[in-house]
């Protein structure tokens, strides 16, 4: 009886070990590494100009040739705070090889950020973010959100949420190894927090009276007519607003964006041929 129990235990142990092997091989591993964008069509990082907490200008353009980790964060965000020491270490380790980390704080004011900067011995520039910057980078849905920009100025990875430093390190090493001004077509993103779909906006889309739709090609009369058209239609997202109003108060509403863009295409076709 006792021997039977021992044999059963050994058998179950083997089953569990084999099971774990296959889980590791086919379940965990594929979830952590994948080609970020099968088409290799990585969007160009929108240009921006900010002033750091210490008063220096941060122009993204000046960072061309470097690998940039652009981190949107806030002092009130626990997961953001835990990522910072990892970024400090990465900057120390890879700064001389061409890594430049830029922190963009979404706090309401700079005071808590200054305090945090000192306490956490941050060694990379931090600037106060704006809604417009967030919109240029496709809308920041939550914090932390980090973008990895290659030496050629393209966004290769976007991570939403707490991400292990090893994930960033693996991706940074991959991008640092690439020659400047050359796209990394076989870039492999790492980690479960990576989002496959990296969307950005142009300044024309962000500054538009119909946010998300570049109306700069319309003349003033056409623009007025187009606005009227959108203000006569209900948004299908359930907000109860017109498409125009919904675009203006909630620029991340996908329903109104799709409606407005479809209407714009039709409008341009009928008015400008």
């Amino acid at each position, binding site marked *: 009886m006792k021997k039977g129990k021992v044999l059963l235990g050994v058998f179950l142990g083997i089953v569990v070990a084999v099971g774990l092997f296959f889980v590791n091989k086919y379940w965990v591993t594929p979830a952590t590494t994948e080609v970020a964008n099968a088409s290799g069509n990585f969007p160009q990082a929108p240009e921006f100009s900010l002033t750091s907490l210490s008063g220096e200008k941060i122009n993204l353009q000046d960072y061309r040739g470097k690998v940039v980790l652009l981190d949107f964060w806030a002092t009130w965000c626990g*997961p953001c705070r835990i990522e910072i020491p990892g970024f400090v270490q990465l900057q120390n380790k890879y700064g001389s090889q061409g890594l430049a980390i830029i922190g963009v704080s979404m706090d309401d004011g700079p005071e808590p950020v200054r305090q945090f900067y000192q306490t956490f011995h941050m060694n990379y520039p931090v600037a106060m973010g704006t809604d417009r910057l967030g919109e240029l980078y496709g809308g920041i849905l939550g914090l932390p959100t980090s973008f990895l920009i290659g030496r050629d100025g393209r966004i290769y990875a976007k991570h939403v949420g707490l991400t292990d430093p090893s994930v960033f390190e693996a991706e940074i090493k991959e991008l640092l190894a690439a020659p400047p001004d050359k796209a990394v077509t076989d870039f492999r993103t790492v980690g479960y927090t990576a989002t496959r779909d990296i969307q950005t906006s142009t300044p024309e889309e962000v500054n538009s009276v119909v946010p998300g739709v570049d109306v700069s090609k319309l003349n003033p009369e056409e623009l007025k007519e187009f606005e009227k058209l959108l203000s006569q239609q209900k948004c299908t997202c359930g907000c109860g607003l017109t498409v125009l109003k919904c675009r203006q108060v909630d620029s*991340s509403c996908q329903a109104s964006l799709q409606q407005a863009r479809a209407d714009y295409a039709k409008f341009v076709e009928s008015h400008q041929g």
Partner: protein
Amino acid sequence: MRNLILKRVFKQRALYGLASAFVALGVAGAAFGVGGPKVVSTRAFLATDAAHPGQTARLAVLAQIEPGYHINDHKPSLDYLIPTKIEFDASPAFKVESVVYPHGRPMKFDFLDAPISVYEGEVRLGSLLKIGSSAKPGSYALRGKFTYQACNDYACLPPTSAPVEALVRVVPSSVPLKPANSEIFRTAKMK
């Protein structure tokens, strides 16, 4: 701390699901700085079907938090956390005398060394409304906002607020009041 995070390898699929929900919610809501995704909705109830001029009426506000999210306690455990609070618009018919917030639940997160006090699921706040002694019979709108900052296990949403609305019906003192929403008021603390 890094090891703690690495230990979560086997949670990745579950977290990925949460991530998807987070993004989906965000897309349906709003991006950073333009309102913020809504993960809390509120309902307000009075303890009676109406109120008399000069009376102190009991009000309960129920805030429902989306599963998977938590919001900070009214008295957060850490000074950098944004507290949950409720604010009411001024009204000529009544005045909010007090608001009682429940204690949060201590929760441990991988990214923090000690548990923090948060609200999850449903939060019940109690409030006392002093009806003006000169308030004329009629219906008065009570409006306010429930301000919160939500996070899930791995990311945070921007601070935002949910509207709080209720209709306060003032009737003459000669009209008897009937108890209402007794189930809610059994658990909502008023003091």
